[in-house]
């Protein structure tokens, strides 16, 4: 990214106090009408999903539209979709941190939160897609009184358990460690029970140089740990398919294809959320058109690679001269579920090409629509890979179709409900902008001109408060 475009990370020529005020005051006020509306909608969707899941667990997987041929449908589509969404957070915080992209400070906290919530949404599906979810603990290898019975190390589903588990743990830690200075600021501004809770979570942060030093080291270490995960998580998820024998799944292309797809979908979701959040939470000065524009360029780039991956799949099928492989792709593009394929291509390959135009990149409305379109497209990508490959595989006698039931649709809605409920709670209760980090990259206009630009620990929580006073 051209970092000189980001000479100013935020707009409005803020000083440290203003940043603190902007970031922390929404947490101390009552929720706005808009927030409550959004929260009620999200919570209703979550409730609908919980009812659907409850019914499904009580009655059986039969309440989904799966059949003897298509054993995975919405469940694993949603799983891969949410895991993909969960990609951008780590990419933004870890990789961009290592590359010293300062503009990331405006969006990294929210993006990381998004990652964690998306992985939580994703985690639901492997659990509830089991015929007997109450035995889900059997997929963990631990000494047990059942023999002991061990797990199957050859199964990609087991690799998933570790990949997702590791990813979630590191992401949550990274997010939380980054959050500590801001929690301390919130603590210092709070009183009563709120102060006590925040005290607990801010781990006794006192703003000392030693605290800052440890914090910095921890952040860089975690970033270093998280970076390989950006690649590994979705590579492992893709092996669920790539190691299978089913034509359309059985492809060595899958790991990079899935990773880039995940970055693509993750950034689309970050954009979607940021565009809403900056309006709702009045963060226009922090999440600027320059941020949006940078993310649009990433979208355009990754979208093009995704398109290349689609073409590579077709080329491989043609070049392999394997009739089953060739048929799957013919069937994908012209078979009974071609509509899903063409939705995917239109949304993921064709639509993002508009982002070549500066006019589009700078039109927030257009970017918002495109981000939504890409979200839809990336959901369909997973649907296409899973369902169109399964529904017509080797023996024509076993071919069938897949039609989701109301329960599956409600579960999908519920997963969005969970995601937005968590995100909205996050907006209300956790500083959504990494204020401490922002403060490191802005110039406090009250500081003397010859003073060095705000260096690392300057503007830290606690210190900042007293100065403002």
């Amino acid at each position: 990214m051209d970092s000189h475009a980001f000479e100013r990370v935020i707009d409005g020529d803020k000083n440290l106090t203003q940043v603190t005020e902007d970031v922390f005051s929404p947490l101390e006020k009552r929720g706005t009408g808009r927030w409550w509306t959004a929260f009620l909608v999200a919570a209703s969707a979550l409730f609908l999903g919980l009812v659907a899941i409850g019914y499904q667990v009580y009655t059986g997987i039969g309440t989904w539209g799966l059949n003897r041929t298509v054993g995975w449908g919405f469940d694993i589509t949603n799983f891969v979709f949410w895991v993909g969404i969960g990609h951008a957070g780590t990419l933004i915080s870890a990789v961009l941190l290592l590359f010293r992209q300062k503009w990331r400070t405006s969006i990294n906290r929210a993006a990381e939160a998004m990652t964690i919530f998306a992985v939580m949404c994703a985690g639901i599906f492997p659990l509830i897609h089991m015929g007997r979810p109450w035995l889900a603990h059997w997929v963990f290898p631990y000494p047990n009184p059942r023999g002991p019975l061990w797990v199957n190390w050859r199964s990609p589903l087991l690799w998933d358990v570790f990949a997702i588990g590791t990813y979630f743990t590191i992401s949550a830690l990274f997010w939380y460690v980054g959050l500590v200075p801001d929690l301390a600021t919130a603590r210092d501004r709070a009183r009563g029970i709120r102060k006590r809770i925040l005290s607990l979570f801010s781990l006794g942060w006192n703003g000392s140089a030693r605290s800052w030093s440890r914090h910095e080291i921890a952040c860089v270490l975690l970033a270093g740990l998280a970076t390989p995960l950006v690649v590994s998580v979705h590579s492992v998820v893709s092996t669920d398919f790539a190691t299978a024998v089913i034509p359309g799944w059985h492809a060595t292309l899958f790991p990079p294809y899935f990773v880039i797809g995940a970055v693509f979908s993750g950034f689309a979701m970050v954009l979607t959320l940021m565009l809403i959040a900056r309006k709702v939470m009045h963060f226009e000065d922090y999440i600027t058109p320059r941020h949006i524009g940078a993310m649009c360029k990433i979208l355009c780039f990754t979208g093009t690679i995704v398109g290349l991956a689609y073409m590579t799949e077709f080329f491989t099928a043609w070049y392999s001269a394997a009739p089953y492989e060739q048929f799957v792709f013919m069937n994908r593009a012209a078979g009974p579920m071609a509509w899903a394929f063409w939705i995917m291509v239109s949304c993921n390959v064709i639509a993002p090409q508009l982002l070549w135009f500066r006019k589009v990149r700078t039109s927030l409305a257009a970017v918002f629509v495109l981000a939504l379109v890409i979200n839809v497209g990336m959901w369909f990508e997973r649907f296409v890979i899973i369902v169109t490959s399964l529904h017509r595989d080797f023996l024509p006698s076993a071919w069938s179709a897949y039609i989701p039931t109301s329960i599956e649709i409600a579960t999908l809605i519920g997963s969005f409900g969970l995601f937005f409920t968590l995100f909205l709670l996050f907006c209300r209760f956790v500083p959504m902008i990494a204020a401490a980090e922002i403060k490191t990259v802005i110039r406090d206009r009250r500081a003397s001109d010859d003073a060095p630009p705000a260096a690392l620990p300057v503007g830290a929580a606690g210190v900042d408060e007293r100065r403002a006073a």
Partner: protein
Amino acid sequence: MADTDRTDDLILPVEGDGASRRSFLKLAGFGVASAALAGCTRGPTRLVVPRPTGAEGVVPGRPYWIATTCGGCEAACGVLAKCRDGRPIKLEGNPQHGVSRGGLCAVGQASLLDLYDGRLVDGAQLRGSAVEWSALDDEMRTALTASRGRTRLLTRTLTSPSTRAWVARLEKQHGVRHVEWDPRSASALLDAHKACFGVRAVPQMRLERARVLVAFDADFLGTWLSPVELAKRYRAGRNPDGGAVSRHIQLESRLSLTGCAADERFAIAPWEQRAALSAICARLAEHAGRKPPFDLVPDAPRPDDLVRIADELWAARGGGAVLLCGSDDPGAQGLAAYANDLLGAYGDDGVLNLGARSGIRRGDDGALAQLVADMAAGEVDVLIVDGLDPLYELPGELGFRDAVTNVGLVVTTSAQPDELHSVADAVAPVPHALACWNDSQQTAGEYSLCQPTVPALRSARTLRASLAAWLGDSREDRELLRDHWRTEIAPRLARNVPFDAFFDRVLHDGFVASSGEGVLGVSLDAGALAELLRTAAPAAPAGDGLALVLHANVAVPEGRHAHNPWLQEVPDPLTTIVWDNAACLAPETAARLGVKPDDVVRVGPDLELPVRVVPGQDPRVVAVALGYGVSGTDRFSRIGPSWLEGRLTVQEGGTVGSRAAELLSFDADGLRWNGRAVDVVGTGESVEVAATQDHHRLEVPEHLAPKRGAVRDAVLITDLKTLQEDPAHALHRHHVPESTLWPDDHVTTGPRWGMAIDLAACNGCSGCVVACQAENNVPVVGKDEVRRHREMTWLRIDRYFVGHGDDLRTVHQPMMCQHCENAPCETVCPVLATVHSEDGLNQQVYNRCVGTRYCANNCPYKTRRFNWFEYERADELRNLALNPDVTVRSRGVMEKCSMCVQRIQEGKAESSRTGDPLADGAVKTACQQSCPADAIAFGDLNDPESSVAQLVRGPRAYTVLEELNVAPGVTYLADVRNAPKSAAEKSHG
């Protein structure tokens, strides 16, 4: 049982009462026998004292076998009932049985479940209320005496000789007239034989002798006469691996299972049969240098082919040629008889034998029509109906419903509450074949015995016992049977053996045959034949109308089978639909009518049916299966899982399928199944029919076909000539390298179980499907679940259409878990719930399965079945049919074919107990055991001498999806067509 009043003495012989040691033993022996007998019927309530030791020979938890006879249809195949803890849990063909030789069809397999039907009538009923049998007997005795000469007994063909003896007594004593009629009537065949040869009988068909076999509308492998017996015999005449292979040519209007198996098949309309037969007869007569004693019927379809067929027949004359005709047209039957006579088929070495004639069809359409006329005229006071439901089976136009109101006393013996029950004054329910004594005569010299396998589950009495009671003989049924065998059968079959020894041996074997079947020399009555041809011929429908072809389905051949959920859920091997019948149309007919599959059409005045498109059917006919639309089948409305979007299998008050019997027609010559002109019009509605297969061809859809892979080579077909001349190149297969860099994952030291399935033998009869269901406790899931493609059958029969027009081949392929060596399912299960056994089986561990379905996704054959719901097991009576050796799976777990691992374990346990190594063939899987065509071989692949290992080495052996290198344990043997010379040359030229 004159001694029963001395029971107390028997149990506690009083000392000094003259009871010597000798007489004590005698009496004690009798006591045990009578106690065992008393246990077979429901006697008056008495104190039950549990035995300190179990019955001799019955070990709890170990199965024992009782030889008996199947009650599924008149063919009366011999069965061995596998019993556990006092009840039968599985029926298997009796390999020693002279007729069925170990095979058992789907209907026979499923008849077990009827035993545990809780809806059957329990005890006698008189005018709607339950009464003691004695009350019914009093009423009947009075009525029979009062209505001398005005009583009719209407039955199906009675195959039981002892029952026939009592019917004869009834006829003699009360002037009762006995009318036999069969819903699957062979009346035209019988009448033609009566006219031509003076013998009203179905000849025994020794198809194993046929070298050229031409069949007109005779579905002898599926639903005609005795399909298991005929399939066995047919298979014996077709052994592509070294033996002789008959030429089989089928001419039929609809597509039947037999037509699918034929080497050559032509679609002809029902009204063209006479002309076609006539052309064949003319050509044969020309060869024989005789003049046909009748006027030739003009306008034969495909005259050149018919001449060629006649030439082929003639070349195999004198024992090797036969023409079978299943037509309902006496004229066509007469022509067939003439052709067979010319070919010498009735001779000593011929295929047909009227001496050992079959006893399984005697029904007379004319007599039935006469009966209805008599009833309508008020000449019948008492009507006793056994085994039939005329209100369902006869068309309204015959007038049975009105006529029966003129009958003073209507008695039915049906235990299933059917339509006749609504007009019957008395019900004398008969027991299930597995719960009573009975006998059966298959041919002139072959007898089977039927014995109880379970204590009576309800109060019922065989027709024989009822007739005897009404004639004043109140002996137990077993005594009646033994009495007949003592006086009538034993003297003929066992002159020098004491009767008890003879009877016990038959009881043990289940079957007895007289040595040497007499061949009846016949001579054709030309005048009678000419007379037959003057009967009304079927006519072509006028204009755009279609001719209706009514037929029996393989799984639900008659209405009486409609109450069996196992049968209802067997996919029809031709249309793959379940829980429904349909209007089958040829593709061009459907296109002309502007209807597509699942559209509802009106056939005739008011029969509404969904459309199925069946290639190979004559485009001028619409084929509809009888046996559906049985009242009371709405009992199955909730048979599947009930959930938010679940739909009922059948609406309350509705029926499974639609009743087509209304469209049967009766004319002067009898019942007509075929040829009625009907209008078929679309109603504009459509329904979702539940079918197990969506795509019906081996080729992928044309617009999606890659250049070099339009055909999926799951089924390979070769022709006999190539196979015999160049076996190494009989199959066109891609070269798959045999060597691998990887070490052998699964080294087997002991046996490695494997299976070989001969596609040349398999005819798709689906007996194996039900056998598997019964053996492995596979649940019935209902129509909605099948519609959603969630059938649970471990073994399915894939049906593919290959080619077009005259070259159309319909192939059936049993498909189950292939037990791959490199199983894709095994690597992906996260919890190791599916693993490889050390003897080569792919095992599913139910209680370890968490239900990710990854294994099913990764199975290239899609043979894994997931328990989507907790399936209905609430019917405790029906649960008695469950196999205690096989787990009933709960919801959320995967299941699939286990190669009957419970049987393998049993065999291994037995082998280690006796110390003898497990012999080849000692373990048979359920599907293999039941197969009437012996298409399935199972055994140890590591034993080079085992039958399966030899087959696997043969030139026809291939594995499905070989190129995936999953190394299946199931090998298929390519289908073989004995193509006509010209066609073989053409395809290989």
